[in-house]
Structures are given as structure tokens and as C-alpha cells.
């Protein structure tokens, strides 16, 4: 008994200071691929090695639209190995409220040999203009109403959030990192966040995917059992986009193919810091870039 106490006292506080300060030891993490869009010479090389189709291209009318979809990306870095215009960042604050804010694209003129002749427009993301809290359109629009409800939701959950985790088909990689949030190192309870055993006690569903055909009904029932107002956060490449599994006879693909999603956290799997960033974002605490 006293040995146990002594060990605890000797160990001291091990909790990370993130988001108040930089997280420890993340400078070695492989984050998202960052593309030098203006100097990207050929999207085909990277697309050919990308295992999930996160980097893709379409040719039409002498032009090529090249895309990077962070929702599909597993952060493997194979693209950066073969293409000098791509480097892997060490970031993790990638969670967004709109699925399309994860997809970037640019249009290039094509040379005769299929390389890029020059940037026509982009890089751009269809979601970026609408990302954030500003309600678009007139104040009496449905969007504005929805935004007001969402803001109220965040006010309600601001200081206490109960999360029900649902594995709707994941490989268990995301779960390993979600469990890490409960460790003394990340200790989410310091934010008033708790993982609970029943959706009836939950304010938020943290859902990993891809949603399998066999879990679709269970996910819907869990969603319906969660009292309103409720938030849904899709976790990982598979939860955001279906990932390497995509849609097939046994999977329905991303979480938002089955239930509405409020925040998307990409990554394979997202680290506890990335998860924390996304969960806090869903309740209106945007901690992006606070510590730089």
C-alpha cells in the first residue's frame, strides 16, 4: 500500500500541457502531406503510389485537376518519397467541421508529355470558405437556424461532455489512441470530458469506421438512443472517408453515409492530441495554432 503511494508520488504529474503549451515529442510525427501546388510538376507519380486514392487526378480539355483528399490520407508518406513537391508535415490539428474542407484541388495546364505546364487555378478547397462559425446567408435561413442551434449546443456542452465511443468497423487502431485519452498522460477529464458506457448518457458519439454493413443498424440505433442535442465526431481515415476499404459489399463507407457528422478528424490513426483537438472543436473550443 505504502509502496504504491510512494511510486505514485515519485512519478509525479505526467499529464501533457497541450493545448496550453506545445505537446512533447511530436517533432518526429508524420502528419499530412503538404504539396507545393505552384511547383507541382506531375501528379501522376504520387497518385500511383498512394494506397488509398487520397491523391488523384482527372484530365479534361487539356487540363488536369489534381486533388489531395485528407479524409482518405493514411499519412504513410509514400507520395513524399517519390515526389519532391510533396513533404510530410509534423502537424496534427487537422479536424474540420465540413467534409469538403479536407479536400484540396488545383487545375494545371498540361504539357505534351503529361507533366504540368502551369497552375491555372487553385489550390482551393470547396469547404474552406464555409469552414468556421460564421453563418452564411440570410438570418432567417435554415442554415442560420441550424448554426444557432449548434452554437447553443456548444454552450451547453462547454464544460461537461460525455462521450460514447462506437467502433462501427475500425481495425482497432483508432481505439488504441482513443483509449490513450484516458491515460494519465492525456487525461481528458481535465476538460470535463468523460467516456460513458451507454449512448443514453452521452452528448457525443465518437465513431470510427468504415461503417460495415453488419454495424450499420447498430450505429443508427446507438445514434437514436443518444438524447438530443447530440454531436457526432468521425474519427480516422476510415471514419471520414471509408479509407483504404472504401465502399464494398461489406462496408457502407464513411460515418456520414449513415448518420450526420459534426466534426471530422483525419489520420491513421489520429494521435490523442489530434483527437483532443477535434473533440474540443466540436464543442466550440478551437485550439488550432494557439501554441505557436
Amino acid at each position: 500500500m505504502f509502496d504504491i503511494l510512494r511510486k505514485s508520488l515519485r512519478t509525479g504529474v505526467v499529464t501533457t500541457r497541450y493545448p496550453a503549451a506545445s505537446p512533447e515529442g511530436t517533432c518526429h510525427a508524420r502528419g499530412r502531406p503538404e504539396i507545393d501546388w505552384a511547383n507541382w510538376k506531375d501528379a501522376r507519380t504520387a497518385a500511383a503510389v498512394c494506397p488509398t486514392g487520397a491523391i488523384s487526378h482527372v484530365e479534361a480539355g487539356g487540363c488536369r485537376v489534381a486533388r489531395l483528399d485528407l479524409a482518405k490520407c493514411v499519412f504513410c508518406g509514400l507520395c513524399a518519397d517519390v515526389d519532391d513537391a510533396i513533404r510530410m508535415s509534423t502537424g496534427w490539428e487537422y479536424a474540420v467541421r465540413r467534409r469538403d474542407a479536407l479536400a484540396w484541388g488545383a487545375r494545371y495546364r498540361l504539357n505534351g508529355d503529361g507533366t504540368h505546364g502551369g497552375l491555372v487555378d487553385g489550390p482551393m478547397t470547396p469547404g474552406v470558405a464555409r469552414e468556421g462559425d460564421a453563418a452564411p446567408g440570410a438570418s432567417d435561413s435554415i442554415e442560420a437556424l441550424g448554426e444557432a442551434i449548434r452554437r447553443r449546443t456548444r454552450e451547453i456542452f462547454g464544460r461537461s461532455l460525455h462521450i460514447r465511443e462506437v467502433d462501427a468497423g475500425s481495425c482497432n487502431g483508432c481505439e488504441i489512441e482513443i483509449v490513450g485519452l484516458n491515460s494519465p498522460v492525456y487525461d481528458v477529464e481535465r476538460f470535463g470530458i468523460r467516456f460513458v458506457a451507454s449512448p443514453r448518457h452521452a452528448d457525443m458519439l465518437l465513431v470510427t469506421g468504415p461503417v460495415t454493413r453488419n454495424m450499420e443498424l447498430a450505429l443508427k440505433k446507438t445514434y437514436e438512443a443518444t438524447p438530443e442535442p447530440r454531436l457526432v465526431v468521425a474519427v480516422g481515415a476510415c471514419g471520414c472517408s471509408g479509407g483504404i476499404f472504401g465502399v464494398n459489399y461489406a462496408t457502407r463507407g464513411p460515418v456520414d453515409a449513415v448518420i450526420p457528422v459534426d466534426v471530422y478528424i483525419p489520420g491513421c490513426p489520429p494521435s490523442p492530441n489530434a483527437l483532443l483537438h477535434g473533440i474540443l472543436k466540436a464543442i466550440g473550443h478551437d485550439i488550432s495554432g494557439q501554441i505557436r
Partner: protein
Amino acid sequence: MSSSGSKSFSAALKPGLRRAMEALAKQFRGRITRVDAPRPDEVYLDADPVMAGALCSTLYKKHGARLAGVFAEDARTSERAFLVYQIYALDAVGGFVVVRLALPPEDPALASLTSAVPAVNWQEREIQDWFGIRLLGHSNPRRCAMHDDWPPVHPMRKDFDLRATLPPFRGERHKFREVEGEGVFQVPVGPVHAGIIEPGHFLFSVAGEPVLYLQLRLFYVHKGTEKLFESLLIPHGVRLAESISGDSGFAHATAFCHAVERAAGVEIPARARALRTICLELERLYNHVADIGAICTDVAFVTANMHAMRLKERVLRTNEHLTGNRLLRGMACLGGVRFDFDAGRIGALSGLLDELGNEFNDLVEIIRSHSGTRDRLETTGVLSPKVARDLGIVGVAGRASGIDRDMRRDFPHDFYDEVQFTVPVFSEGDVQRRLAVRREEVYQAISIIRQTLNKLPDGPLRTEVREVPPDRVALGFVEGWRGEIFHWVHTAPGNRLARCKVKDPSLQNWPALSEAILGNIIPDFPVVNKSFNLSYSGTDR
């Protein structure tokens, strides 16, 4: 490459395997139509399907073999047949005999081996569900890998489209076995569980507190993985293999790489073999430490788990330093590994080992000194050696129940034949011993990594694996932290696969849970379950 008759086996064949093959060829003259020995430790026998039972019996009784895997392949276009493969592991000689049985394309059927070898129960039912091959005489032929509400399709057949859309799941009414009697009631749990874990359904039949019977319903996270491999370029398959079972990503990817490398006939540089070994042991470390902590949590000793989670985090951060990913993803590649360990990384790894050695001692001491924990763990969830042998239990759970097997020692892969280590084996088979196997393996893992670092060879990180020639078959295997992992590939033109069979140890070990829980009380189920810690995703694929 192929030969028939008994005289002309490849001279390169391992001596023990050659002797076994010569004996088999003599005994089954005329019934074995072809013998291929593509590698010294891997022999393929084409046999008359009616002889499968007799072959199995001979292999078990005369050659000490065990049936480590059974799977099928739809070869109707190339060979006008469905093929069933039975992988026999000859642990004592370090070799595999793969029996290949050709079944007619119309109404294929084969005599079931389950009554003789209960270990293949689920695998045979999986073949039945996925290929529509009937296993005649199976003692429990109900659907296993496909839930009862699935339409009558066989998704692993080549004429079934990977991207086909099946009608939505409406909720099945699975006919569980009925357990009746005075005071007997049923407790259904899942698929969405209370903790942060994967989905599956358990039906307990209890009378008072003790569990009379436990039925498992898995395959909720079936993702069509084996079919998906057939649609991918081989190099992309490495990333899919990483996503078969999240906590064994590196082990699965390495087993897949082994299979492809063996098919391609590629030698792996010594440095890559060493780095793979280090990563496999790092995966073992973080999982074993986490499991030891979680077992303590399930008997309400949370303090120990807090220390364990802290140590696990320490390993994960080192993983990130070494490979850029906390779960070692992106490290595996065909022909070797992707990232080198420079002096700084080796220093970080050595620092981890020093710190972990001390900290883990403290954790072990805290658990040991807590008599209440030991009271809860000893004699709880016993899996007897006899039942473990019948069910073919592998890995940690097997070694806690007297099964002295470890692929790292019996079929040394990567760098394991160049390091010294012991394989802890206990015969009691309770939760305490499954914890003890993990505890000893943590010490062994630290030692294996240290020895590997001391001998770390110089040289290239990988051999380039160009397009793999079509129509080659190969078995890849790895002792993952949970147990033996098999990947079997059959290559196709265009650097693709005609078939990739994945066998996670969990598929083999799940039935053990139903046995180990008998007579225990439901409140002990979490700790018994955690002591096996089986992968749902690895099982369901």
C-alpha cells in the same frame, strides 16, 4: 518445379520435412497426384479429396503435425475447380506441408475435419459461407462468417463483385442454441459494448452467478479485406495489411511482406531483418504492457493500469520517433523497411529500454505486492491444456495453457535466429498465467531488442521487389504479440494477387473464451476476456 512420385524431392528441402514427405508419398502412392516444393520449408501436395481425412490423421499421428489453417480459393477459370488448402505445421522440423484438394466447380463439397480437429471449426464454416463449398458432416454447420440476414451470396467467389451492393442489415434473428432449466436466464451483450472496444455479441446463459454457456457472435466488422486484396496492386496490399488488426499492424504487414518476398524469391538485407525484429518486439512491448494494466483495471486495481498506460505511451512515443507513427504504420515495405535507425534514433531506443526495464520492474512489484489482485486472477478463467490443444490455441493464450510453441523459435524469421531468448510456458491456463506469459515476454522483448541493437548489421534497408511473377504461391508467417499470423498469397499477372488468405491468431483463439468462462461468474468475464485480448477486426476481416 513440380515432380511426382517419391524419389525426386528438392534436395534443398529441410531434412525432417523431406523424410516426412517420403513417408507420405510411400503411404499414399497414387493418391498424391503432384508434389511441389517451392521452398525448403514449404511443400505442396495435390491429393485426392477423399484422402483428406486419412492424410490428416497420418500427419497428426506419425509426423507430429497440426492443422494451422484451412482456406479455399476459387480457381474455376484457371483449373476448373475450387481449391481447398490445408496448412499443416510440422513444428518439430520447422516446415509446412500444404495439402491442396481440388473440388468440382458445380456443387463443391468436402468431408469436414471438425469432429477430428475441432481447431478448424470456424475456418471450415467460413469456407462454407464465403465460397459455397459444403463441409459434409460438420457438427455445427450454421453460418459463422456471414450473419443470418445475408442474402445467399458467396462473396469470395470470383464472379461476385467486390463493389456489389447488398441490401441493408435489418437485424438478424440468429438461432442461438437454447439453454433451458430452472433458474436459467440469458444475458445478451453487444455488439456495442460498454468500453472503448470493438463490436461483437455475447450471449451468456447463467444460473445464479456462474456462466453455464457462452455463445459468441462475431464478424460485425467484416470489411471484405481478403477480397479487397485481390483488387489492389501488391505494394498497396502492405498498407491494407497494416489495417487488418490495429494493434498488430506491423506484424500483419510483415507477414504479408514475407509471403510476397517468398513468392518473388527475394532475399532481405540483414539490417532490414534486424529492424523488423525490433519493430515486432516494440509492438509486443506496448501491447503486453497495456494488457497487463487492463487486466488490473478489470479487477478494480486502477493504479497499476495508470502506470501501465504511462509506460505504453512512452513506447508509442518512441515508435513515433523511430518510424514517424505511434503504431509503427508506414514502416513496413516489400523487401525490407522504409526508415533507417540513425545514431539519434538508436539512442532514443536505448533510452526507452533502460527506462522501461526499471519502470516495468516497479509495475510488476506493485502488482505482485497486491494480494487482492492475485486472488482475483488465480484460478480464474482456466483453459486446460487438453482443451487448448483440441482447439489449436496459439500464442500467449496457448503458452499459458502448456502449449510450448513460438514461431520465433520454431520457424525463425527475420533476426530471431541470431538472438537468444526463452519462451515462457505455464500449464495452469488461468488469467494469472496469461498475465505471467506477457510479463516474461516483456523482459524477453527488451532483451531481444538490446541484442539486436548490439549486433545491428550495416548495409541496405531493402531489396527492391519488382513486379512479382504470376501464379506463384507462398506462405508468410510472423509471431505477432498475440500469436502466429499467416498470410498466404497466390500471385496474378500485373503485380496483383489472385488470392490473399489472412489468418489472425484471434480467429483460432476465440472459441477458447467460451471454454475458459465456464463456471466463472459474469463479473469476471471482462478480466477473462481481456486476458485473451483477441482482435475482432483481425477475426472478422
